[in-house]
């Protein structure tokens, strides 16, 4: 077995297999005919805006909703007729859903009691999991006597203590404040690695998804727009939606003028864009080119020779963010391009520094431009 079974589809059977899954609420299609494989040990993120169907998908995995059509298979078993209380899954709720009339200890023991685990074993397993989430000293408290971060860890412990094959997490960090959220992201990933349980995390926060995920799916209107590792999704988005949803991107319409085996040329408003690797595109077809703001080089000196992957414009606005600055550069065609550049030199009156209405020259590496098919 490799370290990452999800990258080696041939030699691994997926833990979760979803086929043609559709769920409708009245006339609204929440989940629209999706297929998905998730492998043992993954931390898979479902990312999307509100109402994109990600929570519905999670609830179908947990058994709270049943699909109109399609199937869910977990660990080789069809889940069509399996109720929530019989599934090998556990869920961590966005609201945490801790039982307010039970202590931390009893909250965590609840799931084990339902399985008629012997009492002494329950005590041991509860203590073990409390140690994992560092709440040993709080086991006699009620949930309302804990801080937000502690409640979050109780919820995680309660879902993990049953050693589910699949742990479903609905916006696990959304209720925490920003600073705690960042810290908890790494904790969550660590705990997942320690226990080795497969996680499916629903989130609307792209940074969270990028930090946590082994692979992620970008969802919109009940469909997957793209599935891949965070790196793939960010560096090789396939559509304008994904390019724009994850990070930010300058997007220009264009037409493929040359489709080589190891390069592609596209005519756009930016001039000619040259890409130094082959992509499956059709010559003459309408296409879009995306450029990440941080991958564009901005300079006040004109390039030495004319060629592809460069354009000039005038600085219209500057946003100073401290570590970087954002420049909005207006092209001759009137389009605005966002460029971010690190503020490496501490100077405001330097001759080299870029200021409003300067003419600047933008350029980028041949590997940088992203081709977007839709």
């Amino acid at each position, binding site marked *: 077995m490799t370290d990452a079974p999800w990258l080696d589809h041939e030699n691994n059977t997926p833990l979760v297999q979803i086929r043609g899954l559709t769920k409708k609420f009245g006339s609204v299609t929440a989940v629209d005919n999706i297929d998905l494989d998730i492998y043992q040990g993954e931390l898979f993120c479902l990312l999307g805006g509100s109402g994109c169907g990600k929570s519905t998908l999670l609830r179908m995995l*947990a*058994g*709270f909703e049943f699909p109109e059509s399609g199937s869910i298979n977990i660990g080789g078993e069809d889940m069509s007729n399996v*109720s*929530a*209380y*019989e599934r090998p*899954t*556990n*869920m961590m*709720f966005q*609201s945490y*859903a*801790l*039982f*307010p*009339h039970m202590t931390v200890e009893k909250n965590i023991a*609840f*799931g084990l009691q*339902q*399985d008629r685990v012997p009492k002494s074993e329950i005590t041991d397993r509860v203590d073990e999991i409390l140690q994992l989430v560092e709440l040993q000293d*709080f086991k006699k*408290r*009620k949930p*309302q*006597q*804990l*801080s937000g*971060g*502690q409640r979050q860890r109780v919820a995680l412990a*309660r*879902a993990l203590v*049953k050693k589910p094959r699949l742990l479903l997490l609905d916006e696990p960090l959304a209720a925490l404040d920003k600073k705690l959220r960042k810290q908890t992201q790494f904790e969550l990933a660590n705990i997942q690695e320690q226990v080795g349980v497969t996680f499916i995390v629903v989130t609307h926060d792209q940074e969270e998804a990028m930090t946590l995920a082994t692979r992620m799916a970008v969802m919109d209107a009940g469909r997957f727009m793209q599935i891949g590792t965070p790196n793939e999704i960010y560096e090789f988005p396939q559509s304008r939606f994904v390019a724009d949803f994850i990070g930010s991107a300058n997007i220009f319409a264009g037409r493929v003028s040359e489709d080589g085996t190891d390069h592609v040329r596209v005519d756009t408003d930016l001039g000619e864009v040259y890409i130094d690797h082959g992509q499956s595109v059709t010559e003459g077809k309408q296409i879009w080119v995306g450029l990440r703001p941080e991958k564009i080089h901005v300079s006040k000196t004109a390039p030495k020779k004319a060629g592809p992957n460069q354009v000039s414009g005038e600085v219209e606005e500057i946003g100073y963010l401290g570590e970087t600055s954002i420049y909005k550069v207006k092209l001759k065609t009137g389009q605005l391009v966002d460029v971010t550049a690190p503020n490496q030199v501490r100077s405001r009156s330097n001759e080299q520094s870029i200021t409003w209405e300067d003419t600047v020259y933008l350029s980028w590496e041949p590997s940088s431009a992203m081709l977007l098919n839709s």
Partner: protein
Amino acid sequence: MYNKRSRFLTVMVSLGLAFFYIPLLLLVIYSFNHSKLVPVWGGWSTRWYKVLFFESPEVWSAVALSLKIAFVNATFATILGTLAALAMVRFGRFKGRTLFGGMLVAPLVMPEVITGLSLLVFFISLQELIGWPAERGFTTITIAHITFSMAFVAVTVQARLTGMGQDLEEAAADLGAKPFKVLTAITIPRLTPALVSGWLLAFTLSLDDLVIASFVTGPGANTLPILIFSRIRLGLRPDINALATIIILVVAICVTIAALIMYRQHKRDLLDQQLAERAD
């Protein structure tokens, strides 16, 4: 400006309170009246308390009957009303849900005379058809009370169920609890405040009811409101004033206890909050 307005408010509040409580105060004072005629003052005396305790068995049997009916009614109404609320809130969209919901709250707006009359007709036809209920009294009044106080319980519990959401129940099911276990371990404990207030509401409504009880009662079965009301027609005897005073006292004690319990709960919540803030 602010002072002026607050003086206006003080006057209004005092007038309002006076309007509520002066009649009650008068009732208490007149319960210590020596005179045999209710409206005539004959000097202080505890005469009517003696009469009430030693010479008015019919008053005490009425009190006993009323309490018995109220207790049985409240218990059944709470069970049935809770089941109805669960059906409305937790069973999704079943066929006829809107109709069921409407019929469930209809007794809240139905004029009591109509409820009472219809139940009387119902009991009479039932008696002719199957011979039950053989005579009207405790059973018929209790059934009649359950039919309308159940609606009040259902509304109370429904509001609580909707308010508390489904997360906790789903979490319990997710952790492996079967539906009945979810009901007993999570839903019912979470519903307790609503169940208690629903029960008390049903109890009070039953204790209070004159109109419906008068329709469906039979010979000899006098609830307290029926007894007091019939006494008015026959000429009020001041021992009723004494009884009323005792009832006011009991209610006042109950309200005080409830307030104390709520105050303690409030203090516990504050303490929890402080613990939570200091937990990290």
